[in-house]
């Protein structure tokens, strides 16, 4: 197992290398002088020159890339052009909010999506199946920012039950996490249904039934356990989708997370922060996928990573 973790971590190196290249060339693709871009619109000539010297922008591109990698390894992502605070500080301040939102949304989505998928699978082509699969399709097609606004109109403007945005109490978490959950619940429902239908048609399920086991035991202990791998995969993949969705949801609900930080930084052309936040999102995504791979080994004893 330990060897497998090491192997998976090593396999992430080319991807990390690719991400670093992408981020490095992101600034070079911009029209104009990168030092000017990093310093911001209001910077003096001295500030721009200092940044040029610090980042080695007068050196050959390969040396610049080497220096960039060196800083990246030390998590030195530069300073925000807007606030002049270290980028890593800005990112760390927002990251817990986004993780809280994403984890709550994933939990809500699993809480609804997995039972809905199971019910649809054990009663295929009945009204209950059509109800849940239609809901899933609606969820996939619905713009997350529009759903957020509609929830605000209903629960904040009309009913006055929940706050329309911001943070402070658990009540502030409900609407944004529901919005984000609706975004991914559809995929979880569909995957659960598909893999449960397959598991329920397998020989081991027939054997379990012929042994006279109760239907609940057959479904939960025999079919669901075997259907969990694709479900876990889709949950892991949806985490990435959630990070994308978080950008929009955090904007709708004025939630002070990473997504909003990225949008604010793009609007202010604060490139060091954009680079840093995107790097952290990429790392987070890789880590979640690694976690999903490790869960496979736990859930399926046939998988032994030697």
């Amino acid at each position: 197992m330990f060897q497998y973790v090491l192997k998976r971590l090593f396999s992430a190196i080319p991807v990390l290398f690719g991400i670093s290249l992408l981020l490095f060339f992101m600034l070079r693709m911009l029209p104009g002088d990168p030092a000017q871009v990093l310093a911001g619109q209001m910077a003096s000539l001295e500030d721009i020159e200092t940044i040029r010297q610090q980042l080695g922008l007068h050196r050959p591109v390969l040396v610049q890339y080497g220096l960039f990698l060196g800083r990246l390894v030390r998590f030195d992502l530069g300073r925000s052009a807007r606030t002049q605070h270290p980028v890593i500080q800005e990112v760390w301040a927002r990251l817990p909010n986004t993780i809280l939102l994403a984890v709550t949304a994933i939990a809500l989505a699993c809480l609804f999506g997995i039972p809905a998928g199971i019910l649809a699978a054990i009663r295929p082509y009945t009204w209950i199946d059509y109800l849940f699969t239609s809901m899933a399709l609606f969820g996939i097609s619905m713009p997350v920012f529009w759903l957020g606004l509609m929830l605000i109109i209903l629960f904040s403007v009309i009913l006055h039950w929940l706050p329309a945005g911001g943070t402070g109490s658990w009540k502030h978490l409900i609407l944004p996490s529901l919005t984000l959950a609706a975004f991914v619940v559809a995929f979880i429902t569909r995957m659960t249904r598909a893999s449960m239908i397959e598991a329920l048609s397998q020989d081991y399920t027939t054997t379990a039934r012929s042994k006279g086991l109760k239907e609940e035991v057959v479904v939960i202990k025999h079919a669901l356990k075997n259907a969990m791998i694709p479900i876990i995969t889709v949950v892991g993949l949806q985490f990435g989708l959630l990070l994308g969705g978080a950008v929009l949801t955090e904007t709708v609900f004025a939630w002070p997370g990473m997504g909003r930080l990225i949008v604010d930084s793009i609007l202010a052309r604060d490139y060091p922060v954009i680079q840093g936040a995107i790097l952290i999102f990429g790392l987070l995504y890789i880590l979640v996928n690694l976690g999903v791979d490790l869960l496979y080994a736990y859930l399926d004893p046939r998988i032994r990573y030697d």
Partner: protein
Amino acid sequence: MINPWRRFKKNKAALFGSILLLIYLVTALFAPLLYPGNPSAPNLAKALERPSIKEPLGKDELGRSILGRIIYGSRVSLLIAIGVVCVGLFIGVPLGLISGYYGGKVDFGIQRATDTLLAFPGFLLALALVAVLGVGLKNTIISVGISMIPIYIRLVRGCTLSVKEQTYVEAARALGTRDLTILFRHILPNVMAPITIQTSLGMGTAILFAAGLGFLGIGVQPPTPEWGAMLGSGRPYLFHAPHVATFPGMAIFFAVLGFNLSGDGLRDMLDPRFKS
């Protein structure tokens, strides 16, 4: 063997999706006939006017007809959907074919680049690219299009790997047919089914992504009537004029639903597992 077209017609959801798409296409193509006025002409005296018989969807914050802007917005979103999948198709499909057919170092290089792009959730990648390229219709299409490329590469590579082992490909190779001819005349037509399905689903995603960028104010810029941007500009008036943000969202929802239902229907129609 059930005729694929009959199978598609029997699928009520797919038919409903096709009807939605047809309405959407007709609206986009005949926009000037459906709304003869200028959808971008402001009329501040009628700002935020509520829906009425004369103006079924009401007016926006600048007194412009929301119905007119949604009708013209269908043209913009159709352009985005077509442009985005073209970027994905024209770059992703050849790369996927080459990667799957040649294998080896070429495959390794293309796949690692694909891994890098896939390390970012699609919308975030589009967002990062917009940050570099800048706002506007053209850059929205390029950014969202690039975020679609790795999906096409992976899909086409996977299909190519199995198709290239078929006897007809081996026969073509044995006859001394050039690689380019084998790729585009023998392999490509046989991987068209998954590409068609992905294109239909991808158009829905493209509309969603572009609307998301427009909503954030970094996509298509006003006064161009883009649904996401319309929704974003209606946000400040949510409390006293909710209609401004409601109707553009519904337009996005039905267009994406149309593409998704049709994509699902196409999958049922073209997937070999459903043929017998």
